[in-house]
């Protein structure tokens, strides 16, 4: 009988002879990484991930999951499997020390979005765009273009053509967001209301 615990159902049967089969596909939705531009002119930053059946649905769900409170001017999502991650460092070790130098004959077939982790425990922020033919090449290019005295702890590279961007006509999606003060707990000023209530009841 199937268990109600999906982990139990995923366990292989022990010692059973049979064919070699492909690995069972995911029984849950995959994840997509969400990047938000908090204000026009500011760099995009990584906010988290959503579960979704495809990129389009991920975009729709990401909008309310990550941009329902604070200002946002643009949003994009990408399949988690399309994000390539460099080694990670700590202390005063710059991750670019671990990245190979760019090969002279890189064909620059695609553009890649490069993200930096500037501080451990913080979000990755957009550093810029490079042209390369592979993620390795992209990080090497980033080393030429974006490496400075600043210590970077981790680099992400994403091929631009795998991203679901906010379309030009969708840029107004966040237009009424600043008016939705009711989503901001601090705006309710609960403390003041309580003080007023206590004052009233004490004098009654």
């Amino acid at each position, binding site marked *: 009988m199937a268990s109600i615990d999906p982990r139990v159902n995923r366990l292989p049967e022990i010692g059973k002879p049979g064919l070699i089969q492909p690995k069972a596909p995911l029984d849950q939705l995959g994840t997509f990484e969400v990047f938000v531009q908090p204000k026009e002119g500011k760099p995009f930053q990584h906010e988290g991930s959503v*579960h979704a059946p*495809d990129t389009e649905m991920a975009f729709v769900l990401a909008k*309310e*999951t990550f941009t329902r409170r604070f200002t946002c001017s643009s949003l994009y999502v990408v399949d988690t499997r399309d994000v390539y991650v460099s080694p990670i460092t700590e202390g005063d070790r710059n991750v670019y020390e671990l990245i190979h130098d760019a090969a002279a004959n890189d064909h620059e077939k695609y553009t890649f979005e490069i993200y930096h982790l500037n501080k451990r425990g913080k979000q990755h922020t957009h550093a810029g765009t490079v042209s390369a033919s592979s993620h390795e090449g992209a990080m090497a290019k980033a080393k030429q273009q974006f490496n400075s005295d600043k210590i970077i702890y981790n680099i992400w590279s994403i091929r631009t053509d795998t991203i679901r961007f906010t379309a030009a006509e969708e840029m*107004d*999606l966040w*237009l*009424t967001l600043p008016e*939705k003060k009711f989503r901001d707990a601090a705006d309710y000023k609960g403390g003041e209301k309580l003080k007023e209530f206590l004052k009233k009841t004490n004098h009654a």
Partner: protein
Amino acid sequence: MNNLALKELLYKIADDQLILGHRNSEWTGFGPLLEEDIAFSSMAQDKIGQSQALYTLLHQLGEQQPDTLAFMRNANQFHNCILVELPNGEYDFSLIRHFLFDTAEAMRFELLSSSSYQPLAELARKVRSELRYHTLHANIWMKQLGSATEESIQRLQRSLEFALPYALGMFEKSPYESDLIAQGIFEGEEALAVRWKKKVEDILQQTSLHLPEWKILTPVLGGRVGDHSEHLQPLLDEMSEVFKIDPQAEW
């Protein structure tokens, strides 16, 4: 400008938004996945916010305070269509209703954005961005589940067939239809219904769902004149329960 005609128009739109906003908010905490729960709840909030803006316009035309209008009327004083008051049922019905209603709603506000009644035209232009998201959300779910598995297609198909006669009730005509059109306040329910049908056909064509012939459907009318199903009064009782404990309370 005919105030009765204008008020009737504002009431029916506001009541639609409030009642469906409340219904959809009943999914909060019960949505099929976390991300969808948040999105659906946010859109419910948007609808209630839009109803508040419309009740505010009514208040400026001499009607009572927005909260009084929302919480102190009985079912027979509400002008919403019956579609929006029906219980949520399963998520397939809620999604179908969301799709059928929000498609019409987005087009209604689109038409109203050129209304001769300026405050309404301004509001319509303002909520356009919210409605863009609502229809984006509705359409993607239709396309996903409407062509996913046998079960999802069957469920949506059943809900679609159940909801369509009620959806046609959204376009129940006002007694002032010709006044509204003549004064350039609103192009009228018929013009809206024609556009809506075309859009619904267009989206459903991209799925495995089958749209019945429009002419075999009988619209469920009555909501616009206060003749509601048995589901509205219990909804209102629950929605206004806290407000009615102390209508003068400051929140």
